[in-house]
């Protein structure tokens, strides 16, 4: 067989496209894995996106998959597809650093549940991808808060990729992996997906097992796919979702991608707030967001103006994560090793978490119950919520992340401001969809749904992406 010439069409291909090429034997899994490993090892460090290459184990797995293809043994659409995992997921026998110096030599003797499920499905893990140290617990001040340095945005390397699933965002956008696995406690899948121009799905709390993943907040952590399209998110979620009796947070539910059962657009009411697409957004992004809103409206769904229930979402998330993270990392904090973290502000934030009293924490959790009820009530009037994922483009890597000034005059309406922390507190699923560019950097909208409405979110995402091509744009990656 002549050596296949791997081009950007492969590196930026969707799961279905690459799967078809593998099954029609355009190239072998081993060849594909070699090509992706070469690219990840060469370009990953340029973006500070690579934590650890797994070339050897990937090639071993690729040989197994090729043997299966020869025998027509079909495991899943992910069979033979190269992917990367955020470095908070345990991979047996390999360093799992959680992006933090104090854990640089940490090795586990079992795979995380999602890694195991993807392995059974035939997916090829080619690398661990970088992340904000300890997934940002304590509150980091600079994008450099990572063992691997600030993760750079493939669309503009002077800009940040977003966090804390920074490597998954950057590597997927740069075509270094076909998809990746990230995690979200409050925004860590949606934000890097938006900044890097990829499609990210935050599943309902408990739908995907967290066993073998670093815990930051037992009540908020979620693991999800970061991909090239809504449909790719569905294919990955089909594999990683499911019951896990060893994860106390497991919801006991599974996910089966069933686009045929998606509701017709005219049966759907989507709630949005005009202010989010106008004065709340950074001026340069408004035209892009308004165009995206027009596309959503053109899909034939009913729309209704709504406002987010009035709760202090940021303070709630910060208090709950602060208390739980301080408990999880108590030994690190009390031993003083927390001061080895790259971000000084983050280390102090983790220490301060020990000052949160039991009554403070329980009050936050009781208010969280009110938030969940308020969203149940909101979803009596609308089926989904729509808002810009982030109101700005990616910040410069040297910019402090807490430097934003409060608006001179308070906005006329809350709009859906705070939907990221709110959606996390309520355990709701969300999908982030690229919807344009501003100054060469991606912007994105998010659709949020009721618990376990992932199929519907994906259907809306797929419909949006059938009318737009933002998700197929490629950054100016040079070999």
């Amino acid at each position, binding site marked *: 067989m002549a050596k296949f010439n791997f081009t950007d069409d492969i590196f930026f291909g969707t799961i279905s496209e690459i799967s078809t090429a593998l099954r029609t034997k355009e190239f072998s899994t081993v060849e594909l894995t070699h090509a992706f490993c070469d690219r990840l090892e060469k370009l990953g460090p340029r973006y500070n996106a690579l934590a650890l290459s797994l070339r050897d184990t990937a090639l071993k797995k690729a040989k197994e998959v090729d043997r299966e293809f020869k025998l027509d043994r079909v495991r899943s659409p992910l069979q033979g597809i190269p992917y990367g995992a955020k470095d908070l997921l345990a991979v047996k026998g390999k360093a799992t650093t959680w992006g933090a110096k104090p854990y640089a030599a940490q090795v586990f003797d079992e795979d995380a549940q999602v890694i195991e499920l993807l392995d059974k499905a035939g997916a090829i893990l080619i690398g661990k991808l970088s992340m904000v140290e300890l997934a940002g617990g304590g509150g980091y001040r600079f994008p450099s808060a990572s063992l691997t340095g600030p993760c750079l945005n493939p669309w503009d390397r002077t800009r940040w990729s977003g966090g804390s699933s920074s490597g998954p965002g950057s590597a997927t956008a740069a075509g270094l992996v076909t998809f990746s696995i990230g995690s979200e406690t409050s925004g860590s899948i949606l934000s890097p997906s938006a900044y890097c121009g990829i499609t990210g799905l935050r599943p309902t709390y408990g739908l995907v097992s967290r066993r073998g993943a670093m815990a930051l907040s037992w009540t908020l952590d979620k693991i999800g796919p970061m991909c090239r399209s809504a449909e790719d998110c569905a294919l990955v979620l089909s594999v990683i979702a499911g019951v896990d009796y060893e994860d106390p947070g497991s919801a006991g539910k599974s996910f089966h991608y069933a686009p045929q059962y998606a509701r017709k657009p005219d049966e759907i009411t989507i709630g949005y707030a005009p202010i989010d697409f106008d004065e709340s957004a950074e001026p340069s992004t408004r035209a892009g967001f308004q165009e995206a809103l027009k596309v959503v409206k053109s899909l034939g769904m009913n729309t209704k103006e709504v406002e987010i229930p009035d709760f202090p979402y940021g303070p709630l998330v910060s208090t709950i994560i602060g208390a739980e993270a301080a408990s999880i990392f108590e030994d690190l904090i009390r031993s003083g090793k927390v001061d080895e973290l790259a971000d000084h502000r983050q280390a102090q934030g983790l220490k301060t978490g020990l*000052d949160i009293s039991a009554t403070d924490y329980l009050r936050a959790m009781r208010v969280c119950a009110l938030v969940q009820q308020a969203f149940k009530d909101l979803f009596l009037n609308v089926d989904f919520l729509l808002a810009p994922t982030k109101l700005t483009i990616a910040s410069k890597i040297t910019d402090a992340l807490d430097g934003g000034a409060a608006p001179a005059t308070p906005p006329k309406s809350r709009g859906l401001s705070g939907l990221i922390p709110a959606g996390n507190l309520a*355990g709701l699923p969300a999908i982030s969809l690229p919807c344009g560019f501003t100054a060469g950097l991606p912007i994105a909208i998010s659709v949020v749904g009721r618990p376990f409405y992932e199929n519907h979110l994906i259907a809306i995402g797929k419909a949006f992406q059938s009318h737009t091509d933002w998700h197929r744009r490629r950054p100016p990656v040079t070999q």
Partner: protein
Amino acid sequence: MLAIAAAAQQPGAAQTVTPANADLESARDLLRTNLQQIAKVKLPMATEPACHFKA
């Protein structure tokens, strides 16, 4: 942690604020502000904590 807290409270500490102490103070200020915001929410006595999300 306790030692750091005690040092930060010593008289005169404010005049010689190091970046280290400034970050710690800023983290504490944020915590105080957050707790004040949460305290403003009217909370019915019967409300139980949302320890696990249930659909």
